[in-house]
């Protein structure tokens, strides 16, 4: 197990290094940060001077080396735009994104699993057909349209829920949470639904497909032949086996919720890292963008690791050495 995790860690480091290179290299080309940093009255000399000061005139590898060195110390420089340390910015925005991601992941998981199991157990029922078709509608709706639609209906027309932001926040040891206030919770509803919809349908379809597959297995037939109750077969045997492949993909899907929140956060003006990223892209705030990409890669790596460990916990074939040749 330790060896396995170490191997994963080694791979993760490579992944991070590659992403760091991409992060740095790509953003180097997105646009000219200098032009957007200086105002309408700036002169040519100012541009040159600023480029020099930002080190933008150094050779590529020097800039990259500097970037990696700093990144290792959690130092991503000062945001060009907000003139604050990037790491601080990201950390201050993180609670918002994590709470949103967590809420939508929960929605996606709970409903995805329930509906997936339901449609797998009753594949030919009318309700399953309706759910499956609706899930396709969910996949076919672009996130931004869902967000706009929800705002229009629930915030503007019905005025039930807030249209933007995360309401009042309470500071608990540096973690600003919106989960403890009424406005905070109300603000969470629409973005969480918007963000979860896509993942929900994915998880649901995945669970359904895997469960149908499992239900077709010999050991399920054998469990029936042993006279086990429907309940024990469906939930004791089938569901547990379904979870093995579902964990991997779901884990990664939930990880990408954090990155996926870019569009949702933009539409709902949710003050998380995603909207920080979009705002930074617009003014080509390279340090923030690079740090964000690294952050996403880090989330991916961590989630991968958690998924692997979960896999170990669930699947004895990995956990216990085989007795066979």
């Amino acid at each position: 197990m330790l060896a396995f995790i170490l191997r994963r860690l080694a791979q993760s480091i490579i992944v991070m290094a590659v992403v760091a290179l991409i992060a740095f290299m790509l953003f180097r080309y997105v646009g000219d940060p200098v032009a957007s940093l200086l105002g309408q009255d700036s002169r040519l000399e100012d541009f040159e001077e600023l480029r020099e000061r930002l080190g933008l005139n150094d050779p590529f590898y020097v800039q990259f080396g500097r970037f990696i060195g700093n990144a290792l110390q959690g130092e991503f420089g000062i945001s060009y735009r907000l003139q604050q340390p990037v790491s601080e910015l990201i950390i201050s925005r993180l609670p918002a994104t994590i709470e949103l991601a967590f809420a939508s992941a929960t929605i996606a998981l709970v409903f995805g699993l329930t509906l997936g199991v339901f449609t797998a157990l009753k594949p030919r029922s009318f309700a399953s057909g309706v759910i499956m078709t609706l899930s396709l509608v969910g996949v076919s709706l672009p996130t931004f349209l869902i967000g706009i639609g929800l705002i229009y209906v629930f915030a503007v027309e019905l005025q039930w829920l807030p249209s933007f932001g995360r309401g009042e926040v309470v500071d608990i040891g540096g973690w600003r949470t919106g989960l403890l206030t009424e406005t905070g919770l109300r603000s969470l509803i629409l973005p969480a639904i918007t963000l979860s919809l896509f993942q929900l349908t994915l998880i649901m379809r995945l669970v359904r497909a895997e469960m149908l597959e499992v239900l077709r297995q010999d050991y399920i037939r054998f469990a029936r032949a042993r006279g086990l109750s429907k309940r024990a077969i469906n939930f004791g045997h089938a569901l547990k086996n379904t979870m093995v492949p579902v964990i991997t993909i779901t884990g990664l899907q939930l990880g990408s919720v954090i990155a996926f929140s870019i569009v949702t956060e933009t539409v709902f003006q949710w003050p998380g890292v995603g909207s920080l990223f979009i705002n930074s892209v617009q003014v080509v705030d390279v340090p923030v963008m690079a740090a964000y990409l690294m952050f996403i890669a880090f989330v991916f790596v961590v989630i991968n690791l958690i998924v692997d460990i979960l896999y170990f916990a669930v699947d004895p074939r990995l956990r216990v050495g085989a007795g066979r040749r």
Partner: protein
Amino acid sequence: MRKLLITASVLALGLAIMPASAETIRWARNSDALTLDPHSQNQGTTHTFSHHIYETLVDRDVEGNLIPRLATEWSVKEDDPTVWVFKVREGVKFHDGAELTAEDVVFSLDRARSDKSNLKQLHSAVASVTAVDDFTVEVKMTGPSPLYPNNLTNTFIMDKGWTETNNAVEVQQAGSTDDNYAVRNTNGTGPYILVSRDPDVRSVLKINENHWAESKPAITEIIYLPIADNATRIAALLSGEVDLVQDVPVQDVERLAGTAGIRVETGPENRIIYFGYRLGEEPLKSSNVTDKNPLADSKVREAMHLAIDRNAIKQVVMRGQAVPTGVATPPFVNGWTPELDAYPEKADAAKAKELLAEAGYPDGFTITLDTPNNRYVNDEAISQAIVGMLGQIGIKVTLASRPVAQHSPLIQNAETDFYLLGWGVPTFDSAYIFNDLVHTKEGQYGAYNPSGYSNPELDKKIQSLATEIDVEKRNATIAEIWKTVQEDRVLLPIHNQVLAYAMKDKFTLAVHPENQPRIYEVTIND
């Protein structure tokens, strides 16, 4: 009902004890101030925010006239035309209680013109700043600078002691690796005090009870909420989550104005929207005419001028929220005249085609138009309309639409053949336009003139404006320059932007010509 009663009683109580009742405004606009360091960015949104915390020596009223703020009076020194004398307001206190003196003004002006300041070009003509006594400051210029006070409307005064104590004497620069105290903390003399700030999310200001002004603002608390998305911002106003929206899309003006409980204020901004083009002899980069530049022919430029239906743009694209114009200067600016402003009522495609044929392009030509899509009111839609109008006289335009971050470099690096730009004139003087848009691109002149237009005679006249003290003579020169610019069709003006602010009808706030609304001027209607 109960709420009303409480409000009423609080109001009654407030009248007895406090100068004003507690009144909060939630103020939404499309982006946040970039920094709190008042000398770090020369950018409208940042200045607007700073004006509530910090104050300048002079300010401008809604008509564009200079008015006193921290300076009570200012004049050129009698015996020396190169020295400006400012009288500093007495009895002004910073938020931390320190008193404002001439020392602070000298310190702030020096800081504003320091190397790392983003405002230094406004003070480029300053030689030195000295305090004559506790409340008098002299600014020595390198030559006669009749318009210098115009440059001071966004130069904020900081407390020398506070800044030095907190190690923030150097201006925070973009890309700097140090954290600067002044970026996130403030100590101004302004009518509001910063309570909390979460960049891009929410800033809270409360009233400064010790402010020097006799009349206290009606608003006692400001909650500042940047909301980037247009639809979300309007939705927030409609659903009652914000009280004031500064950047109202033109298409929503009508609906908002017709909504019960919402008031919309409109007014012209001191900003011209125009098209520029490359008109040197070198062939265009994006045209099918590869051996010469069709735009070098003034007939072609005239044809383009005639092809544009400015009224249609106003009516359809801008929903009436624009003031079409024939000259590239807003009416606020010294040098503007109604005669210059005249523009063709209707497009004259026939005549334009004739001119094109005369110039040798009976079938037109192709060209790429670069437009920003997130900077000015309906910028992309205006450009799109122009594409259609030019298409009708045979000029086939490809539209290249980009966020302003990618659009501006094209202009600064002269990589565009044809572009849309908006130009605000903070000094309210034509020289500001000539310096950057008309003068040959060289040195500190012509930074936004990628056209290749170079008229040495004109350049000389433009340069003379900076030092000419004789107002009559100076204005005559301005008129001469405009005449040439109009004849050569150096710029293709479309209209002056009209701004709209939408608010709960409890509040009233007039549109500020430089789009720098002052919340302390908000009045409450009972």
